[in-house]
């Protein structure tokens, strides 16, 4: 009998909420976490841009203990979200469970604040780097700190595939559980790039919006970077049932592939292929019962490409789908996008509420799906997808259904 993977715990930290209930409440009421903000790293080092920054996180981080106090924000976000997810799952780790728990956390780039601080000090003041700079920066810092915090000794590593890191981490963890390499997975992703150096580098790419994130709207002009973490507890179904755990959903599909074409421009075939792989073998319900949490970055290229890909996969049924991009609210969490957005897909399945694409102002004939403009919609759902398509042409899609 094939092993099945279910979701038993959720944890989120984002500009729109520092736990899942707050995050979900903001999502369903169309609340935005995006505003113009300035990051100051020195007298002549400042950058002003629209961003989705988490406010008040320091108060939350203050209670995380000494080990975590000495980590970068990307690790702190992952710790807060995973504490919530583990508690939500009602997990009390026995020694046996610890050896059977995987800790796989995605991130696009790891500890940027630590690296920025070190470089700015070195280059502007001739200061030496703090000796923990590397341990704060390494992309596996979050996975390592979580494994230490909970004594988890199963497979543990970081996954890095830019904006698809979170979806890849979740999908790979599910595959490990299916294969028998683990029974439980603490997985998802975290990102904290709202630093002076990182934002200047992003700005140089000319892909950021000058004001607002407007996915699928004709007047969209780029993405807005957010920060945070989304963590799931995945579990082998019989294991979850044996301990009487609450089950949110079954992870029924995971598709991943590469465009093999271009570092910046996405390809319809790649995105469509990843969705088809995620749907492969699933007994598909009517399209009207399917919600897709789109990658929907609000860039000129992504949204029409994703629309075409969805149409290619679902054919005439595409008009009956319900789709939205919650990046319009929490911004683009880059590596952590798949972390928080799978939570949207799971909560939508659970509650029958589809969070909206806010800031929708002008229809675009090239983005002509039902993208849930501006207000949440109620819909009886049987299957939900979370799409993640990364710079570099790496695609990952996860699918959830009720069990």
């Amino acid at each position, binding site marked *: 009998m094939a092993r099945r993977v279910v979701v038993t715990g959720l944890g989120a930290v984002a500009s729109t909420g520092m736990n899942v209930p707050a995050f979900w409440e903001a999502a369903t009421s169309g609340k935005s976490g995006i505003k113009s903000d300035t990051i100051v790293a020195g007298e002549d080092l400042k950058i002003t841009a629209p961003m989705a920054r988490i406010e008040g996180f320091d108060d939350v981080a203050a209670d995380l203990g*000494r*080990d975590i106090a*000495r980590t970068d924000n990307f690790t702190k976000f992952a710790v807060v979200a995973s504490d919530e997810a583990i508690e939500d799952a009602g997990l009390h780790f026995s020694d046996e469970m610890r050896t059977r728990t995987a800790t796989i956390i995605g991130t696009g780039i790891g500890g940027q604040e630590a690296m920025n601080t070190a470089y700015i000090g070195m280059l502007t003041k001739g200061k*030496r780097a703090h*000796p923990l700079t590397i341990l704060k920066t390494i992309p596996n810092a979050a996975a390592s700190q979580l494994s230490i915090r909970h004594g988890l000794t199963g497979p543990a590593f970081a996954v890095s595939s830019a904006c698809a890191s979170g979806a890849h981490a979740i999908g790979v963890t599910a595959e490990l559980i299916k294969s028998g390499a683990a029974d439980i997975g603490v997985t998802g992703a975290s990102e904290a790039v709202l630093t002076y150096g990182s934002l200047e580098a992003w700005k140089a790419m000319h892909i950021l919006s000058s004001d607002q994130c407007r996915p699928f709207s004709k007047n969209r002009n780029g993405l807005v970077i957010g920060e945070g973490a989304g963590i799931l507890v995945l579990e082998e179904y019989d294991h979850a049932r044996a301990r009487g755990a609450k089950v949110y959903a079954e992870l029924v599909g995971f598709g991943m592939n590469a465009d093999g074409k271009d570092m910046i421009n996405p390809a319809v075939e790649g995105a469509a292929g990843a969705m088809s792989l995620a749907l492969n073998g699933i007994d598909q319900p009517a399209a009207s019962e399917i919600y897709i949490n789109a990658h929907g970055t609000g860039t000129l290229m992504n949204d029409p490409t994703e629309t075409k890909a969805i149409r290619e996969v679902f054919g005439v049924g595409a008009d009956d789908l319900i789709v939205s991009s919650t990046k319009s609210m929490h911004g683009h969490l880059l590596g952590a996008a798949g972390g928080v957005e799978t939570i949207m897909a799971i909560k939508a399945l659970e509650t029958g509420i589809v969070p909206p694409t806010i800031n929708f102002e002008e229809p675009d004939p090239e983005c002509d799906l039902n993208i849930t403009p501006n207000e949440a919609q109620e819909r009886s759902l049987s299957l939900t997808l979370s799409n993640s398509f990364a710079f570099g042409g790496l695609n990952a899609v996860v699918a959830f259904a009720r069990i």
Partner: protein
Amino acid sequence: MADLEPTLLDIIKDHAVGLTEAPTRETDINDLGIDSFAVVEIIYEVEEKLGIEVPFNANENPLGDMKTVGDLIDGVKGLVEKGA
């Protein structure tokens, strides 16, 4: 070189999360609650305060057979002299 002892005791005190009182030479190292991170930080602060480089390898179990804060102070002093 000036006596390092008070400086070192001060630095160690800041990292001794396991203690309610100020550490002395006789304090058991196990009671300090310091870990491998803290040892690296203590050495770094010594370097910053004294403007020196301490020849220290984080992979060589820095606490080794040390039992008391006195042992730790003497160990750091030894490294400082080695680097001087």
